[in-house]
């Protein structure tokens, strides 16, 4: 069944100035300025990095499978925890969401492309350069950085030859993110179809507008922090050295002023994908659209004023502890609004449970659990117990894996048919979901118990009483890791033709009522919306 509205005809890419398709040969991918090409580059790169970072996680879980030293030396283990985090955050999750933004934002707002297409190309290649620089540190004298992804001084200043490479990698990744974010913000603010007012934009677009703002605000802060690390190490400055009048705690303040909004950079687009998928499979408009928008903005605002809850034990004045405790608790309110709205969207909906919806529902449940442990940690006196324990590891993996990773997977299943024109294999998709959803709990749930029982994070060996839960966690980890190969298989299979079933333009039943992208043909032509659409589907009242 065709969902194409009469107002929009398929051959709008036949205008003279956009008559040609992609370049021939591999150079197409190097010189492209097309938002769909660049989106694909981002997504493929992110998926590759997901497996690189995942391999590091497997090494960590293998070493922790039982007490004692098994496979790697402690220095390399610490490099693995550090590099796993950096690769997953800067190489997998962030680029994957930028990839989704590249693909979907112009199609969702009726724009012909991104606002600044040449800069779009540069953002991607700078990302590759930054990750190459980061990966190169693995092979250097003294090993890759091993002081944790937070790069706290003075510990990180003991890194060997890798230090300047790691710092410049952060600079390149920062420039890449800022350029990507500026592009997305300019696209959303300047390129919308005439009928699309701000409060008619799809939630995914809203969440990315706010995420873009966060990125532009925080990446320069991280760049400044690591620049001071560089000068402290090589140019005799004393920013983080108390003997010269500086303060190592200052680095932690600056880092977390970046770091806390950074975790929302990874979670807000996640919310956006969930708010896109749930209404389609509940066959209802999104419940509480405007409250979703305001809640997203409120979370972004709060992100800037809660950073020191990551440093409760570092020794702050008591007034600081109290302020950051109460401010942090406030975040539960807008987040609660969102969870309520997703639940209310599903309430009395005519729900079906295709793979994207399964991932979305498990996201709502598991992310709520991860949020609750966040609330536990926001209580400063209680946090003195949890700090630097495995409870922290459990908390942020519970919010990142079943949230960001799951919703990236969901987005993949949801939009792959639109991108490729082929249907993915629903059976294997559901198998992937159930294996992931069960194993992710075997993997991370026991880590709460480990942390509460006193197991510290970032150690290659542990006391004997932690053995059982570590072994269970590792088994969950191996199952989870292996299950992700199914996703790789499905993506490749779908691109090659999938089930062979030709998908309709709207792919999902009545999806054209929910978003402009479903009014376009499947697969999507190389150029879309060269003239803006006049009728805008609206997902809410």
């Amino acid at each position, binding site marked *: 069944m065709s969902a194409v509205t009469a107002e929009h005809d398929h051959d709008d890419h036949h205008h003279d100035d956009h008559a*040609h398709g992609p370049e021939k040969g591999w150079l197409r991918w190097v010189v492209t300025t097309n938002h769909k090409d660049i989106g694909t580059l981002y997504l493929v790169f992110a998926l590759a990095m997901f497996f690189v970072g995942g391999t590091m996680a497997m090494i960590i879980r293998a070493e922790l499978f039982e007490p004692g030293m098994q496979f790697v030396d402690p220095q390399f283990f610490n490099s693995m925890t550090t590099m796993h985090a950096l690769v997953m955050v800067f190489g997998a999750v962030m680029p994957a969401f930028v990839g989704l933004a590249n693909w979907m934002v112009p199609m969702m707002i009726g724009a012909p492309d991104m606002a600044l297409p040449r800069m779009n190309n*540069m953002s991607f290649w700078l990302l590759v350069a930054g990750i190459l620089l980061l990966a190169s540190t693995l092979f250097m004298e003294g090993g890759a950085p091993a002081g944790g992804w937070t790069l706290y001084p003075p510990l990180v200043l003991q890194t060997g030859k890798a230090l300047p490479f790691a710092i410049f990698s952060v600079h390149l990744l920062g420039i890449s993110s800022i350029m990507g974010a500026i592009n997305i913000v300019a696209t959303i603010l300047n390129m919308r179809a005439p009928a699309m007012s701000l409060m008619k934009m799809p939630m995914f677009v809203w969440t990315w507008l706010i995420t873009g703002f966060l990125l532009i605000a925080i990446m320069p802060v991280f760049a400044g922090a690591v620049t001071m690390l560089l000068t402290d190490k090589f140019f005799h*400055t004393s920013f983080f050295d108390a*003997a010269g009048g500086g303060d190592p705690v200052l680095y932690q303040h600056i880092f977390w002023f970046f770091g806390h909004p950074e975790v929302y950079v990874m979670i807000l687009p996640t919310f956006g994908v969930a708010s896109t998928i749930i209404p389609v499979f509940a066959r209802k408009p999104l419940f509480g659209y405007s409250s979703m928008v305001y809640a997203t903005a409120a979370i972004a605002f709060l992100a800037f004023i809660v950073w020191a809850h990551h440093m409760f034990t570092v020794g702050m004045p008591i007034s600081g502890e109290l302020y950051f405790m109460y401010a942090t608790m406030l975040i539960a309110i807008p987040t609660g609004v969102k969870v309520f709205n997703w639940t209310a969207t599903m309430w009395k909906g005519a729900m079906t449970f295709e793979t994207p919806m399964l991932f979305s529902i498990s996201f709502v449940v598991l992310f709520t659990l991860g949020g609750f442990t966040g609330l536990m940690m926001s209580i400063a006196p209680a946090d003195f117990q949890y700090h630097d324990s495995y409870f922290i590891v459990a908390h942020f993996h519970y919010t990142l894996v079943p949230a960001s990773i799951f919703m990236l997977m969901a987005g993949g299943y949801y939009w792959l048919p639109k991108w490729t024109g082929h249907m993915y294999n629903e059976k294997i998709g559901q198998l992937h979901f159930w294996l992931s959803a069960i194993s992710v709990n075997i993997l991370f749930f026991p880590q709460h118990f480990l942390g509460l029982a006193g197991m510290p994070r970032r150690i290659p060996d542990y006391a004997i009483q932690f053995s059982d839960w570590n072994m269970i966690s590792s088994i969950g980890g191996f199952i989870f890791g292996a299950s992700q190969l199914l996703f790789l298989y499905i993506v490749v299979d779908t691109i090659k033709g999938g089930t062979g079933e030709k998908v309709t333009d709207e792919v999902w039943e009545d999806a054209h009522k929910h978003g402009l992208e479903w009014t376009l043909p499947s697969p999507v032509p190389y150029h879309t919306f060269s003239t803006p659409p006049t009728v805008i589907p609206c997902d809410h009242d």
Partner: protein
Amino acid sequence: MSTNNAYYIPHKATWPVMATAGLLTTLVGFANYLNGSSIGSPLMMLGFAIFIVMVAGWFTLQSTESESGMYNHGVGISYRMGMMWFIFSEVMFFAVFFGTLWYTRNLSVPWLGGEGAKAATKAILWTNYTAVWPTNGPGNVGGHFEPMGAFGLPFINTLLLLSSGVTCTWAHHGLLAKKRDQLIKGLIATVSLGFLFVLCQAFEYHEAYTEMGLTLGSGIYGSTFFMLTGFHGFHVCVGAIILSVVLFRSAKGHFTPENHFAFEAAAWYWHFVDVVWLGLFVFVYLM
């Protein structure tokens, strides 16, 4: 609010990849240099050369496209938004160093002197230290130094930059009133004042290093002083180079009262650099 009718979409872009290659080569070279490797400097210079060629090529491409009328109103708005958000990111970059100055002066240095919750540091580690500003810390890092006063070269520099803001605006008025002569004279004055500023700062640094004992290694005062003024000076250089390009284009007859994004972007950037300097003058030199 749509401006995307017949929006100009470029197709094959080779400069961005070259920019990436240039940046990557420069940084790999710099990292090798810091690690004491002999390939560091040549690599850095190679990367920088690639970067310069890229900037020249990309700027030429943009100005050619602009002059041939390929950028409509919508494209112009995208460029302006891009520049505005870029300047916002620069504001945040400088905010880190201003924040560092604020934190050390008002929190960590007094704590080292025994104030507040951190009194133990003084009691255990540095009983003889008295917290004052400027300071190079309880370790007397970098040895004796004199702080930089506000009313020598820094004050002259303030006047130079403020006047350059005026001449920049005067040039803009010339551009809007189609007075090409005023535009070019105004830009020449702005660029000259900019480079004069950098020259004065070079003298100031020379004096600090040779006569006042004030270096990047002079504890937290030297660190914050040179980091803030150094990054600002670098931005003045970049701004002056951008304005030189705009001057060169003006002399070639580019820009109309309706279409002169490059001029606007350069002027915004210049005023931003100006405002940062005022912050520096107050918080680094005066207070």
